């Protein structure tokens, strides 16, 4: 796997870990949030925590689109799938996500709903073409990375004059979520964990570039390093963040130069701008309502908007009040600090957003790292 193996070289990682340890000042704490679930996965999957000095702490952010989808939107999707005329096409990892009442699309499918797992928007278009008598709805979710394919699907459906295709749009935006996290962390409260910098999302930045993060770096005085998802990418980004903190700099730096530039993919941005517009607000599981953080189809494309086409009522469902996802996503608490973690809340029975997909902070810690909690208790 050329261009992948180079970024998974254990020897290079150990050398880089030595450089990080030598660069980090022993008398200070470095708290970095990796926004994206892809980074969380790499950190957990490769055990990077064991390679970092104790005074560098990685905080797993809200950047898993599956995790942040609120239960109400899952309920809406289930209600849609239960309509007899509808075929609902979804990405695989959405199938198990619980709505309220412990229901999921996997259970709805078992009960007779026509739910199909697809790998791309094109699969959904193909199903709509093959089954003109069915109403085929694509359950569109994801950050800026997966939005352009949804826009292209609408363009294609327009060209093909597909009268039986629509999307249930749940696309969300990264910058407003970072803003919400920074707004929610009380920097004046010494009991709260402040953030010293961000590992910025790679795939998102291939679309939107690095420019949107400059505001955070400047306004909140937080360094941001846009980094790839391979483990050596993450290690290098951590070193770059440590260096910025040491030098009291707060800039946007780009570790992922092999795919990201300052302005991003302007064709993709144009496609998104043509089809979508901002919602006034959108609910995030664990973070609540965030202004201008979600997208919907423009009125000109209302015919492809499942929420218009089927007059779907807006459903909301409260998170479990004992769930600490909100504070975990802001870096204030760790997964093991939550009373529900590993007791009633596990990947087999997720109660909160962080446990929902393997890239969520709690699920990653449970699946890959929970042995460390026992080691800590024993020591």
């Amino acid at each position, binding site marked *: 796997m050329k261009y992948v193996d180079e970024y998974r070289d*254990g020897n290079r990682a150990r050398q880089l870990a030595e450089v990080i340890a030598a660069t980090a000042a022993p008398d200070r704490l470095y708290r970095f949030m990796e926004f994206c679930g892809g980074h969380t996965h790499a950190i957990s*999957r*490769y*055990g*990077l925590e064991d390679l970092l000095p104790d005074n560098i702490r990685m905080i797993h952010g809200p950047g898993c689109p599956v995790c942040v989808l609120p239960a109400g939107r899952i309920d809406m999707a289930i209600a849609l799938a239960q309509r007899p005329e509808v075929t609902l096409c979804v*990405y*695989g990892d959405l199938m198990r996500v619980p709505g309220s009442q412990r229901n999921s699309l996997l259970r709805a499918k078992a009960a007779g709903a026509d739910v199909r797992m697809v790998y791309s928007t094109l699969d959904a278009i193909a199903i709509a073409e093959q089954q003109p008598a069915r109403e085929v709805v694509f359950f569109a979710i994801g950050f800026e990375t997966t939005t352009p394919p949804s826009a292209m699907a609408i363009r294609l459906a327009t060209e093909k004059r597909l009268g039986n295709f629509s999307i249930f749009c749940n696309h969300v935006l990264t910058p407003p979520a970072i803003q919400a996290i920074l707004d929610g962390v009380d920097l004046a409260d010494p009991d709260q964990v402040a953030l010293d910098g961000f590992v910025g999302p790679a*795939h998102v930045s291939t679309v939107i570039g690095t420019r949107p993060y400059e505001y955070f770096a400047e306004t909140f005085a937080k360094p941001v390093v846009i980094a790839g998802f391979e483990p050596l990418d993450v290690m290098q980004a951590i070193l770059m963040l440590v260096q910025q903190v040491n030098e009291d700099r707060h800039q946007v730096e780009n570790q992922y130069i092999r795919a990201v530039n300052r302005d991003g993919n302007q064709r993709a941005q144009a496609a998104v701008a043509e089809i979508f517009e901002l919602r006034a607000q959108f609910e995030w599981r664990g973070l609540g309502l965030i202004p201008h953080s979600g997208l919907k189809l423009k009125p000109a494309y209302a015919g492809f908007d499942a929420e218009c086409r089927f007059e779907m009522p807006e459903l909301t469902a409260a998170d479990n009040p004992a769930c600490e996802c909100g504070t975990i996503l802001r870096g204030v608490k760790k997964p093991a600090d939550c009373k529900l973690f590993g007791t009633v809340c596990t990947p087999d029975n997720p109660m909160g957003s962080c446990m929902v997909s393997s890239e969520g902070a709690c699920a990653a810690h449970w699946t890959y*790292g*929970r042995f460390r909690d026992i080691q800590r208790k024993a020591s």
Partner: protein
Amino acid sequence: MSDKRRKLNLRTGHVDLSHGSGGRAMAHLIADVFHAAFNNEWLARGNDQAAFDVGQGRMVMTTDGYVISPLFFPGGNIGSLAVHGTINDVAMAGARPLYLSASFIIEEGFALAELKQIADAMGAAAREAGVPIVTGDTKVVERGKADGVFISTTGIGALPDGLDLSADKARAGDRVLVSGTLGDHGIAVMSKRANMTFDTDLVSDSAALHGLVAAMVAADGAGIRVMRDPTRGGLAATLNELAQQSGVGFRINEESIPVRPAVAAACELLGLDPLNVANEGKLVAIVAPEAAQGLLAAMRAHPLGQDAVDIGEVIADDHRFVQMTTSFGGGRIVDWLSGEQLPRIC
């Protein structure tokens, strides 16, 4: 009385409900498809059961159902899989498989040509393994009530004296051996699933492992504690099961675990972990530390164990964690899957 019936059209014909009715059509289907493919003295007697001699000592018995999509995949089909899988379940006890039974549930409309292809593959696999299919059953269900064909096979075997492998026998200090590369079967099957669009030269590793097991038992049967074939759920599920059943933990080394580049690449593409992907021709053996080198040599001397490696050890752990030292030198848990392994969105 001569048989003047019309021959089954095995080229373009389909299974219909009469083939499961218990009447003449069913008898013809069994004769032309199954007896022709399996062809042995027990079936030839035409009884509803098979009678055979049993030796002294302990017997082993197992049964398994086979449901797979697609039915045909690179390196085999549901028929060869149903033979290999059940032989392997018998063999993992250290036993010598002797006989198989096969039960078919066929959907109305299933092409006779495909059914013959499946039966022929079963017959060939059974002959190659030296384990005849001596009895069976056929049912036909209405269209829409099955996914083409489902097969159940039962196997029995004879256990050599003094051998008592069991999943509760792993002890701290034991070594963990695997017989070859992981994930080949699961990825080969996935590559042919509807709406999957990746090409690969990979073929399933589906194979009968009793020869390999016999070689291991001959080399040092007393040194083997547990054997298991890591099928659904892959190596991760197998080690977690054994950890629970033996009340131990495991520490394995990622760098030692053999995975073909094509499997690693496909897993990368789909967001899957090769440790969770199914195998149908591999075994995991937990062995006494002093027996490990000898058993490894015996495995490597067999064609199905050429790539056998020692991937780690059994450790004392009340929490029964399967821990892995990653290629980076960090640590992680290798956990069970939560439900079905589903590709990630991004």
